[in-house]
């Protein structure tokens, strides 16, 4: 007799993703779907999608969704959650969306202790628009708009969003994880589930920053990209649980 060890989550649709080969979004979508399944949230969840590569996340998760303007997902989620406090509301945002244009919305949603969950994908680049510098782009990293490498004298320093949010009282659960190997994917899975549990327990704002790869815009094969993430990104963005209300 065969026992299923691993299969597609129930709250996934059958759609094929539009993501590039090796893109981290596919894994992170799956971890969100796993949390929704594990906590039996499918009928209660309302997701808020960003502008960016993952704008069409609603095609892949079989739950109610709202598609927000660029960077405004935490404000949209706030509006939803205040009207429907017993539903589970999450945003899924990239680093352009959350850490550039949406900096104000994320900080204030966190400061208010808004009882929502934020999945923040940090791949150090703007993906959808073709690989421009993000606030999270590493020092020296070459992108379309930092073709000579990010120069701190002209382009400043990469933004550590989690460290910034860690100073806020309204944040109840905050972790930075990565999806560059199987072990870390399992850690990320637990963190995302924990973030949703935080919301279910009505403990306030929860955010998981997920370090991810963008092989296409980094100009690397996926295998090289996961090595670059582990070597370069993790040293600047250390993996840790910053806050846990438990």
């Amino acid at each position, binding site marked *: *007799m065969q*026992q299923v*060890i*691993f299969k597609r*989550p129930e709250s996934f649709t059958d759609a*094929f993703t539009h993501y590039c080969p090796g893109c981290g979004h*596919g894994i992170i979508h799956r971890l969100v779907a796993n949390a929704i399944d594990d906590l039996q949230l499918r009928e209660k969840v309302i997701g808020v999608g960003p502008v960016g590569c993952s704008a069409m996340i609603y095609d892949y998760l079989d739950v109610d969704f709202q598609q927000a303007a660029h960077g405004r997902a935490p404000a949209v989620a706030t509006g939803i959650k205040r009207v429907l406090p017993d539903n589970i509301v999450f945003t899924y945002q990239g680093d352009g969306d959350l850490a550039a244009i949406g900096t104000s919305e994320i900080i204030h949603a966190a400061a208010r202790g808004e009882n929502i969950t934020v999945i923040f994908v940090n791949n150090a680049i703007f993906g959808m628009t073709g690989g421009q510098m993000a606030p999270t782009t590493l020092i020296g990293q070459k992108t379309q708009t930092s073709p000579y490498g990010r120069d701190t004298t002209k382009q400043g320093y990469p933004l550590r969003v989690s460290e910034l949010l860690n100073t806020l009282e309204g944040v109840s659960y905050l972790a930075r994880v990565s999806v560059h190997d*199987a072990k870390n994917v399992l850690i990320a899975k637990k963190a995302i589930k924990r973030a949703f549990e935080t919301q279910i327990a009505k403990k306030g704002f929860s955010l998981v920053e997920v370090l991810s790869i963008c092989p296409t815009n980094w100009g690397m094969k*996926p295998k090289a990209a*996961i090595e670059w993430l582990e070597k370069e990104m993790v040293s600047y963005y250390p993996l840790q649980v910053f806050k846990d209300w438990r």
Partner: protein
Amino acid sequence: MIELDIERCKGCELCTTACPVNILVLSAEKVNSKGNAVIEMSDPSKCIACARCAQVCSDTAITVYRNK
């Protein structure tokens, strides 16, 4: 034992880096209907059903079974 949905596979090879018994390889010939080169198992008998390949698969193309 794994089952690979080759239509979902984009041949990124991330699973090959995760496999502890090194039985996943990018096929030299096999392509799916979208024209992507896909992954295949060189020796299914060696599979230990650890699911590491499935954990790192960007397209959730892998289902993992274990014989009871």
